[in-house]
């Protein structure tokens, strides 16, 4: 798994054979980590920092596609999902954002910051008992990111942080898996298992881990160091000028970028 240096983007599996992707001069940076670890806070702080350096930034996040977000929220409220439909809905959301948002922004030379990526589905599906080979085949159309930053935490630190924040939510506590007698027990067990899976994925896919038990500004400083290091090696290689981008696509990426602020 390439994690630094610049090479042309590659597909995780069979890719999108019908799509003429062309050159993608932008950078795809993924922030992974379990629920409540502070991903969105960190991403909010990264954006202005990158923009000050002259980079155009586009944000994308799990379940935020215009095509699927309502469907996913409704389905979660109705508790009618199985691990199959859950995984497939996530994959549809991801494919929609990949084709309409991530790839056009990369083509236009943006830095795309993705709040979660396919690894979240890999981790959750392992915990929910889905066939891991199937999950990975399903996401075979994904682009391999240039850099995956992993906010690493333990359950003991996570629990008070979540309780002080937005509180324990049904799904993030794994209540659908009936793991514990109450939401507190269930949260601990579910998140413990998830974190184990994330740690295994971090080793397998070469995530760059950042200690997320630290205060917000220290985590931010570590993330910036890693991103600067990546961009340094990336810009050291000569890159072809970005090709002209269809105006509609470009405008859409820009509009999304503004909305995401």
């Amino acid at each position, binding site marked *: 798994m390439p994690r630094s240096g610049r090479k042309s983007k590659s597909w995780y599996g069979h890719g999108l054979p019908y799509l003429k992707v062309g050159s993608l001069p932008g950078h795809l940076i993924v922030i992974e980590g379990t629920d409540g670890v502070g991903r969105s806070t960190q991403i909010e702080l990264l954006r202005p920092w990158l923009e000050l350096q002259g980079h155009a930034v586009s944000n994308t996040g799990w379940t935020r596609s215009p095509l699927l977000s309502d469907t996913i929220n409704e389905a979660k409220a109705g508790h009618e999902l199985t691990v199959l439909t859950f995984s497939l809905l996530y994959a549809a959301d991801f494919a929609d954002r990949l084709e309409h948002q991530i790839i056009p922004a990369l083509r236009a030379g943006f830095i795309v910051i993705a709040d979660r990526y396919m690894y979240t589905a890999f981790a959750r599906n392992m915990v929910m008992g889905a066939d891991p080979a199937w999950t990975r*085949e399903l996401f075979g159309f994904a682009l391999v990111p240039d850099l995956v930053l992993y906010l690493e935490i333990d359950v003991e630190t996570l629990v008070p942080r979540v309780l002080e924040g937005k509180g324990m939510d049904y799904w993030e506590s794994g209540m659908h898996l009936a793991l514990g007698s109450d939401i507190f027990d269930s949260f601990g067990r579910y998140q413990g298992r998830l974190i184990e899976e994330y740690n295994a994925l971090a080793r397998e896919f070469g995530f760059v881990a950042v200690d997320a038990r630290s205060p917000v500004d220290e985590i931010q400083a570590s993330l910036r160091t890693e991103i600067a290091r990546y961009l340094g090696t990336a810009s050291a290689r000569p890159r072809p000028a970005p090709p002209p981008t269809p105006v509609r696509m470009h405008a859409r990426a820009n509009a999304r970028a503004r909305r995401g602020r």
Partner: protein
Amino acid sequence: MRPLPGSRLHDPHPYPGRLITVEGIDGSGKSTQLLLLERWLASRGYRVHFTEWNSSRLVRRSMKRGKKKDLLTPTTFSILHAVDFADRLTYEIIPPLKAGMIVLADRYVYTAFGRDVARGVDARWVRAVYSFAPRPDLALYFRVPIDISLERLLAGRTKLKYHEAGMDVGLATDPAESFRLFQSRVLDIYDQLTVQFGLRVVDATGDIPSQQKTVRRMVHEVLRGYQGPRGSERAAER
């Protein structure tokens, strides 16, 4: 890269019920034949459950929005249909099969293998996505030339549907021409699937009663030895 997960499509399913599916391009007459089959089975006292491709409530809104605003790509089109299928499998196909009933499915995974690949997704990928689908006891394929299906479709209504004609693929600007080109691709793939998955071909150019006769004969074979839940004594007839 990674080995393909074992597909359930290659082994007989473990349930006491029977799964009968129909395939064919739009205008092949498969839905008409399935309806007649359902009537016949019900009249013989069998307990039958009917389920149709792309009918689950779960993705109806996304599908509608995607089609209306032309937001669907070959991949999202494919995955949304897989959500529909997985949802119906969970709630509409597996439970009746476990209860020993006869499930009639208007289109099955072979539709995705045909249409989605004709739209450009990777054939290995879409097979892997649907690898959780149980194998039908009988998968009928109503084979018909493009011109006949087009004639049947246009006799019933004035316009071809956008996706049915494959207009999203951009093969032609004229809907009838697009239908011809797109559905020809699908027909070619169905021919390959017939061999790979053992679909039973019904000549769909013939008249309706003689096709139905063929269908009933094939279904009769599949029901040999079947002991379903009784709607009446006649269900036990061999």
